């Protein structure tokens, strides 16, 4: 079995009107090369599922997709890091469906795990309740939130092998393990492609069964430099 694929083959997967779930958390653990590809592909009318919008310093990861007006609907817990997306939402050009972050991740987990939905107390007493079923179980109120799935998922890992096994690193795992499960087709972008057997079994964060294609992204060294430059420019890192 060889799931190693190329960016050209990933490009062929993009269709207008698709629902695409993207792993990562505001740029960290985000599939940056695939996002660049999506932004230059010209596909439009997308429903994008991502936990938050772009890195606060803007202009990479999700930002170009909104700048290009490729996104019709955004399903997320937070849109505030992207002024362009906030403006499109305000003007009614972009439909944003907000969920509390814990609800967002559980809807996707349910979607990947064969569950119809979840019961959560989060949002009771707020506008999040609107339009949703409420159940009382043992005296506590819960909102019924339905499972969420995508046509395509694009995740980011540290290392991947030809069986599709993905190893994560540090805090870059974040949403990727759940997002990987909740789509009809999952592409995993990795820093390093390694041979079968190179990833210890207990180090596999996403078993290969969830992954249809593994593609080379930035090397770890390239990624380190990218973030060092970003954080230095932003005045965050000092010698």
């Amino acid at each position, binding site marked *: 079995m060889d799931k190693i694929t190329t960016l050209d083959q990933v490009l062929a997967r993009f269709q207008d009107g698709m629902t695409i779930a993207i792993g990562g*958390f*505001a*740029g*960290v*653990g985000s599939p940056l090369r695939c996002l660049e590809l999506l932004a230059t592909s010209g596909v439009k009318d997308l429903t994008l599922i991502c*936990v*938050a919008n772009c*890195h*606060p310093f803007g202009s990479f990861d999700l930002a170009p997709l909104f700048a290009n007006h490729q996104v019709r609907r955004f399903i*997320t*817990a*937070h*849109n*505030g890091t992207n002024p362009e997306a*906030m403006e499109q*939402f*305000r003007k009614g050009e972009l439909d*944003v469906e*907000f969920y*509390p*972050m*814990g*609800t967002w*991740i*559980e809807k996707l*987990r349910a979607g990947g795990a064969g569950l119809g939905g979840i019961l*959560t*107390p*989060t*949002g*009771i*007493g*707020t*506008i*999040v309740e609107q339009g949703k079923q409420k159940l009382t179980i043992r005296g506590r109120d819960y909102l019924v939130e339905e499972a969420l799935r995508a046509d395509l998922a694009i995740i980011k890992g*540290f290392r991947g092998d030809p069986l599709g096994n993905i190893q994560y*690193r*540090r*805090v*870059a*795992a*974040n*949403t*990727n*393990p*759940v997002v990987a499960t909740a789509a009809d087709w999952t592409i995993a972008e990795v820093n390093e492609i390694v041979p079968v057997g190179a990833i210890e079994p207990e180090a596999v*964060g996403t078993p290969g069964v969830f992954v249809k294609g593994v593609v080379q992204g930035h090397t*770890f060294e390239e*990624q*380190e430099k*990218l*973030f*060092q430059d970003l*954080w*230095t420019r932003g005045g*965050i*890192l*000092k*010698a």
Partner: protein
Amino acid sequence: MDPREMISRRAALELQDGEVVNLGFGMPLAVVNFIPKDRDVLLQSENGCFLFGPTPRLGHQDSDTANAGSMPITLRPGASVFDLATSFGIIRGGHVDCAILGALEVDQEGSIANWSVPGRAPGMGGAMDLVAGARRIIAILLHTDKTGEAKVLKRCTLPLTGKGAVDVIITDKAVFQVAPEGLVLTELAEGMTLEGLKAITQAEFSVAPELRAYRLA
């Protein structure tokens, strides 16, 4: 002293030794600088780790190690990393002892609003889960806004983050405990009188018999 620093210093005093703590985005993050030395707390970053440390120096950062604002952090010995479903299970499942949240408004029922203003809805992020799950919620905010309007209200006017969920309100002028019967003033800032406080507070409140001066240490 800068009012925000006052609030951060006072909020840090709420944290007990050994507590599992989540600091919300904005003003709460500064609390980490004022945690008393004799108290060891387990800080959680909602994007998936425990025991994060200070900002690394240039050259010591790691592109895979950042907080929920995507800014670089360090991990202390004994740190753990986990995915977002686990992180929010920790938050929603009652495993966080204390959450400190910035607020736009709080009210006399202990409700908090911090995620949406008219014309600008950034999104609720993790705040609503923290409100639903953390065992103790500390709301921090400046007592009045830029135009001098009260932010400690009878009833929040902005979309709520959580209804009746706050336990302690800390502003630069006062500390209130939220009791079943309403707000109880327990600390008053130096130079502030009760009348002066009532003039800038819309919420009704009672005064604790043991009212004391605002603590900074």
